[in-house]
């Protein structure tokens, strides 16, 4: 009786562990975090969606796809990007797609526009204008990066394997294809040309310095090429020994005390 009970308990434990392992493996393989890019540029959103759909075609459930579907989203990012700072976005947010099931909208579905200026935590308010302005700056940076990527990935001219008739000389500026939208007038960029800085590029502090690491730009050059950080004037720290040594010392002391007690 006891034996069978124990066997059954072991089977239950094994089944529970197996279910946990399978669930974790399934979720880790199938579930990907929601694309949290808040860039309001429709071009960037399409690129992200295309890449995701190519990588995992049937991995994401419908609700995740609906959240990534910025092209049919309720909010027109370009329109919001042009809203000046401090202005209420009631007109822009008001473009909610009310057809069919509820679509994804950041900060919740704004069902009542009166909440938008109430300052509640879940509803957009006047202060969101600053956030949208920041996102507009970010979108410009994305546009510039995309242009640079095109310049970088331009393929070199292939050598023809067989002699071909000479092609007529091409015009230096190619006209646009029929039906294609006119190309935006962006400044010419080359590989050596630095990117135009947006509001986010003005601070070039390394992350390591922000995280508390010594500034690699200060100090002297060491023998191996590394930087020896300069020591602050007379400032000495008082670190403790490692916990291994401390606990080892304590356990040895306790062992001695217990042994002495038992001997007596």
């Amino acid at each position, binding site marked *: 009786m006891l034996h069978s009970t124990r*066997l059954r308990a*072991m089977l239950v434990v094994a089944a529970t562990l197996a279910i946990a*392992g399978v669930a974790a493996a399934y979720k880790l393989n199938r579930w990907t975090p929601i694309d949290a890019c808040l860039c309001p540029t429709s071009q960037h959103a399409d690129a992200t969606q295309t890449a995701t759909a190519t990588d995992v075609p049937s991995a994401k459930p419908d609700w995740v796809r609906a959240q990534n579907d910025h092209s049919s989203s309720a909010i027109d990012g370009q329109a919001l990007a042009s809203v000046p700072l401090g202005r209420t976005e009631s007109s822009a947010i008001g473009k909610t797609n009310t057809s069919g099931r509820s679509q994804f909208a950041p900060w919740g579905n704004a069902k009542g526009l009166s909440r938008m200026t109430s300052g509640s935590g879940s509803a957009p308010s006047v202060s969101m204008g600053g956030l949208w302005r920041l996102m507009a700056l970010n979108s410009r940076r994305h546009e510039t990066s995309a242009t640079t990527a095109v310049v970088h990935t331009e393929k070199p001219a292939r050598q023809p394997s067989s002699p071909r008739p000479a092609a007529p000389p091409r015009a230096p500026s190619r006209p646009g294809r029929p039906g294609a939208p006119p190309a935006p007038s962006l400044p010419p960029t080359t590989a050596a040309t630095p990117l135009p800085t947006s509001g986010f590029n003005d601070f070039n502090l390394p992350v390591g310095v922000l995280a508390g690491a010594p500034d690699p730009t200060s100090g002297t050059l060491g023998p191996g090429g590394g930087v020896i950080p300069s020591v602050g004037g*007379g*400032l000495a720290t*008082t670190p403790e*020994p490692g916990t291994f040594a401390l606990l080892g010392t304590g*356990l040895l002391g*306790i062992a001695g005390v217990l042994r002495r007690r038992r001997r007596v």
Partner: protein
Amino acid sequence: MTVALAIGVVLLAATLYANTGMGLASEWASSPDASYGLLLVTVAATVAWKRRHLFLLAARSSDRKQGGLALLVLGVLMYLAGVLGADVFITRLSAVAVLAGSLWYVAGAGAARTMIAPLAFLLMAIPPPTLVVNAITLPLQLVASRIAEATLAAAAFPVFRDGNVLELPSTTLQVAEACSGLRSLVSLLAVGTVLAWASDRSTPRRAAIVSLAVPVAIVANGIRIAATGVACETWGPQMASGRWHTITGWITFAVATFVLVQLARVITRASGESRTVRAPEAVGV
């Protein structure tokens, strides 16, 4: 059949927690803040081995097991939450919960009770999360600075404290994050747990012994910093670094352990009961 199934369960659990275990072992081996875990795991294994006869004896009687199933399911849910939420601490905690729940469900509550001490040591071997460490490090730094300032002033050494920086005539001591006393606090808590388990039987007295480790460790760290300041003023600023400094840390922790043992002895003597065979002086003879 039972043995084969037990081996299968162990292998399944090992597969489930392989990555977690490797990460934990790597942190124990590489981080001075978490290296105490290696010793605690060794202590847990030793205690579990010594108690195996008690465990097997208690496992012969079938008693309440449903709580073990609840604990096992809770541990599995914690595992899933930790893995999917990328929270290492919860995943590590779930390993102990799954182990405790499995023991309880398979062997019974009485058998699982004999393994409470090793499970507690395993639980303590898990390094605290960064959120907690960051939250308590700065207060510990300030408290240690204040204690060191008061001690130096009481010893007639001129000192000026600016936050966590102690200005002395010959040098300036900074009580940095590594000097906050968190290492000695964690280590002394572990020592206190082992001491409480080994020297007393009453749960309130055990809790009192473990709780006393906190003030003892904090005060000892402040005195350690003050001693470093005194050594700098007496023999020069080079005493704040190097071998002398390491030896000072060891000596201070040994003194703190001695104080904790004496406090535990006082508590045990006041109650008039002890689990182990005590020395004559321990019972006031």
